């Protein structure tokens, strides 16, 4: 579903990621591990097309990432991203935010109507139910929701987008442990076949349920293996500060 | 469907061309109180309309410059201009013709007036040189482009050695109209002013001047002033011979008919006469001298 071949993104002092290659098959759920600043966010931004790498190639669903705008948008519409900072629109209602996931397939009329009145309420209700939120929240302005509720709304937006490849950038960073576990379960459920999931974490304590773990260190890929095969040495190498300048 | 058409018709009403017959638009420089102008030119429009069989409309303008601009742009067809504005308008509008002037316009003059209290020691002048006594006084002209309220008074002041910057405050005032000049001098807001002699006389006669407060200082030598100027394309728009019919209608205004008599009275004239174009050469040269014609 996703393939990176020798991808390099230059940075100010050193490359943000260097010569990274990886592959993601349908149904695979992969965790991306590394310290903060290791290049996880950059890698995800390459994966969803926000950044075009200076070197190397990106393949989406078996085809090279297109440079032709329309074609590229069609490919991107199948990729959903759960951003670290959520990137929802505070001034819109929950329902309007959910519907923002549908922009790629909607006509201009629906896009405009969405700004003025509630569209596709039933589908939105279903999406909210999947993330265990009450339907009564639909009409609430997003700005009034709590942090955990907003995170769920962001996940529900991915549902509305009906993305096949799910990318998630540190979705659990600011949550207390029980909540983090529940949300991770939700995301993992979403990533079941035929979908695929690539999720970045900066701590290695929530790896159950993932099929593979990829380690990133200073922009380079250091391991790519199953979580059960992960040794303490691997982790130590990943998180040690030696070699940092 | 029909209602849709109705809505469209209403919506597009501002867009539709004027379907009515050609309108002759007349105007005048706003040298007097607007009510008076409305009354006068309402009568003129009615009279010309009846005589010529076309629709005539009076278009009021707010200042002298606007009248010249309107004429140059072709928005006004027949305008009662002052000497200076008439020359400006004709210089800017190729083909424009002078149709008529009043009997008084060939030998027109201005008056200088003063506030009695403010200038107690000022006696009426006997010669032009005495104008120099107006230095350092608060002085008001009429409109900036007025011939009798600004151009010629400024010309005579210059002959006596008084420049606009010599007045109190380093600048003369511009009241806007002849009536306003009288009122402002009478009130004491200005100590002295200059205006159209004819307006002065007629306001005296109507008892609208408080002679205990305002005094006449000096009458200027004569010069040509007001005239009717028409666009050169009227024959093309209204039919052959229209311009001369229009001219005749103006020249034939007589005191025997009640409405025409009223028009002539409001104009302060016994009749209109033909106006030789070359008499305005003097105005043009003064205008160039004072920078009002470039």
């Amino acid at each position: 579903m996703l393939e990176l071949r020798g991808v390099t993104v230059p940075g100010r002092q050193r490359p943000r990621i260097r010569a990274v290659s990886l592959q993601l098959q349908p149904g695979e759920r992969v965790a991306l591990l590394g310290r903060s600043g290791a290049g996880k966010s950059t890698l995800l931004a390459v994966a969803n097309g926000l950044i075009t790498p200076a070197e190397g190639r990106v393949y989406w669903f078996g085809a090279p990432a297109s440079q032709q705008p329309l074609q590229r948008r069609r490919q991107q519409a199948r990729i959903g991203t759960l951003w670290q900072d959520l990137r929802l629109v505070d001034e819109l209602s929950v329902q309007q935010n959910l519907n923002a996931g549908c922009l790629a397939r909607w006509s201009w009329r629906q896009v405009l109507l969405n700004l003025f009145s509630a569209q596709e309420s039933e589908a939105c209700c279903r999406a909210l139910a999947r993330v265990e939120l009450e339907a009564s929240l639909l009409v609430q302005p997003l700005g009034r929701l709590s942090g955990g509720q907003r995170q769920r709304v962001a996940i529900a937006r991915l549902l509305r987008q009906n993305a096949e490849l799910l990318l998630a950038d540190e979705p659990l960073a600011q949550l207390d442990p029980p909540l983090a576990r529940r949300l991770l379960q939700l995301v993992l459920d979403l990533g079941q076949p035929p979908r695929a999931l690539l999720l970045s974490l900066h701590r290695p304590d929530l790896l159950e349920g993932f099929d593979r773990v990829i380690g990133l260190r200073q922009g380079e890929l250091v391991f790519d293996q199953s979580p059960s095969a992960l040794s303490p040495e691997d982790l130590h190498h990943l998180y040690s500060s030696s070699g940092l300048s | 469907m029909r209602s849709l058409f109705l809505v469209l018709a209403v919506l597009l009403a501002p867009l539709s061309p004027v379907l009515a017959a050609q309108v002759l638009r007349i105007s005048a420089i706003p040298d007097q109180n607007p009510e008076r102008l409305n009354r006068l030119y309402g009568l003129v429009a009615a009279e010309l309309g009846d005589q010529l069989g076309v629709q005539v409309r009076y278009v009021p303008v707010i200042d002298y410059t606007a009248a010249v601009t309107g004429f140059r742009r072709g928005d006004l067809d027949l305008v009662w201009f002052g000497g200076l504005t008439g020359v400006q308008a004709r210089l800017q509008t190729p083909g424009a013709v002078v149709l008529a002037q009043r009997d008084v316009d060939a030998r027109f003059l201005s008056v200088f007036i003063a506030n009695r209290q403010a200038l107690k020691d000022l006696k009426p002048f006997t010669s032009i040189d005495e104008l120099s006594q107006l230095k350092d006084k608060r002085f008001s002209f009429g409109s900036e482009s007025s011939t009798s309220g600004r151009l010629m008074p400024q010309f005579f002041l210059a002959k006596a050695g008084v420049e606009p910057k010599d007045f109190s405050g380093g600048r003369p005032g511009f009241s806007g109209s002849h009536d306003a000049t009288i009122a402002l001098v009478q009130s004491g807001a200005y100590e002295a002013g200059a205006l159209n002699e004819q307006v002065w006389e007629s306001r005296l006669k109507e008892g609208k001047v408080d002679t205990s407060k305002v005094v006449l200082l000096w009458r200027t030598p004569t010069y040509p002033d007001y005239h009717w100027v028409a666009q050169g394309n009227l024959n093309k728009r209204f039919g052959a011979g229209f311009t001369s019919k229009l001219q005749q209608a103006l020249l034939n205004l007589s005191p025997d008919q009640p409405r025409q008599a009223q028009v002539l009275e409001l104009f302060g004239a016994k009749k209109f006469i033909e106006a030789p174009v070359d008499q305005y050469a003097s105005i043009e040269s003064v205008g160039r001298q004072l920078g009002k014609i470039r």
Partner: protein
Amino acid sequence: MTPAGQMLIPALVLLPLLWLLPGAVHGGGLALLLQFWVAALQPSLEPHLLLTALRGIGVTLAIALWSWLLSLLLGFGGGLLSSVAVSQRLWCCSWPALLARRLLALPRSLHELLWGLILLQLMGLQPGVAVLAIALPYGALVARVMADQLDALPVRPIEALSTAGAPAWAALFTAFLPPLWPQVLSYGGYRLECALRSATLLGVFGLGGIGADLRLSLQSLQFHEVWTSLWCLAAVMLLLEWSVRWLQRRWHQPLGCVGQRGLELLLLAVVLGLLLIPSAQLMELRWQELFSSWHWPESLPLWDVAGWMQPWLPLIGTTLLLTLLSALLALAITPWVLLLLCPWNGCRPLLQLLGLLARLLPPPLTALLLLFVLKPGLLPAVLALGLHNAGILGRLLLEGLDAQDQRASEALQLAGAGPRRSLLVAGFNTVARSYLSFGAYRADVILRESVVVGLVGAGGLGVLLLESLSSFAWIEVVPVLVVYAALTLIGEAAADAYRSRLLSGPLPLEGLNPAVGS
């Protein structure tokens, strides 16, 4: 210095003004000035006069409405074109936006009156001139404000939508419009009030509406008639200001969602739309004439060297001096009056009434009134511009004080501080930054406005411009316009620099937030 101190410092401008005063007063027309104010209590109520006044108001309102709508359309389009953020989304590069921004600076640099006088020359006597004259500079101004607002919005939500495959325009609409909307509403309403003032001013110069009646009846000293028009105008202005405020309060929800008020908005749009047609008919607006009758003066000597030979230094110097003095005066009046009179209960209503009168009278007419008692020159011009703008700034200050949190000043008063001290410490310090920032913006407006008091011989570029226009001296008009435009653009940059230093953040423009204290 505390912000409140900065608010009170401009009063130093009174020293040179007081020094100028004895030489400028003549008092000859004091009786006339008294008559004018006495006439306020007995406006002429003759039916035909009332009818004329109502018609004049109608035309002024029609001009304001049309020019306002047109300027919002132009401003919206221009704002999208000149926003770097939008440009990067749509065209993946920012130079089209930067270019548009430069181009839009040009229409903005000239006062609407100058646009009116230029368009009058090009298009002739027709009501459309006033509409376009206001719409062009206003449109460019709205475009700038919109672009600034757009560029200050967070781009991350839009990136999120774009990487999920949304078309650029759909992402723009969904992620940019909602946060922009409250500001559009509040700023748009404020522009309508400005448009009414501008339409009145253009009328004073003969471009249609009540302004012409005001000037003519004032010039012929028919004070009772002047007040008929003035009271009508006051009623309309107050009604407009109140209803705009009311709608802004109703629709301004910091965390609300767009769409909840959709029906009301739609209703308002329909009402405005229905008003457009009768108002076009009222002012006899005919589009085909507007676009068919353009007429360039033949042989326009644009680059003739003779026209460029002007004593620029004193001209520019006088213009700047006039601007500076008026701006400081406008800034100083309200805080000081408030400070001196605040123990008295009638202080606020009195200030509100005086402010309304100051906003109501266009500066050239105030200047004409002042000439009854002052000699022509800089002083009446400074007073006229200063008082008019003090009326506008004063209203913002009073609203800011009303909107602010009252607890701090209550606490101070409970602790025994007098009303003056609590106003100075709690009230002024909270609103000072935004007040001063609006003041800087106003100074920028006054620089453009300084041309309108050319009537009273204040000197400077305005006088030269009006004189050369009335002499049809194109050879002089163009250089003066160019210099004027350059000057206002520099002034705008200076005001912006001051404001961004003051606020260290995106610039809230006058009228952008209904509450000044934020």
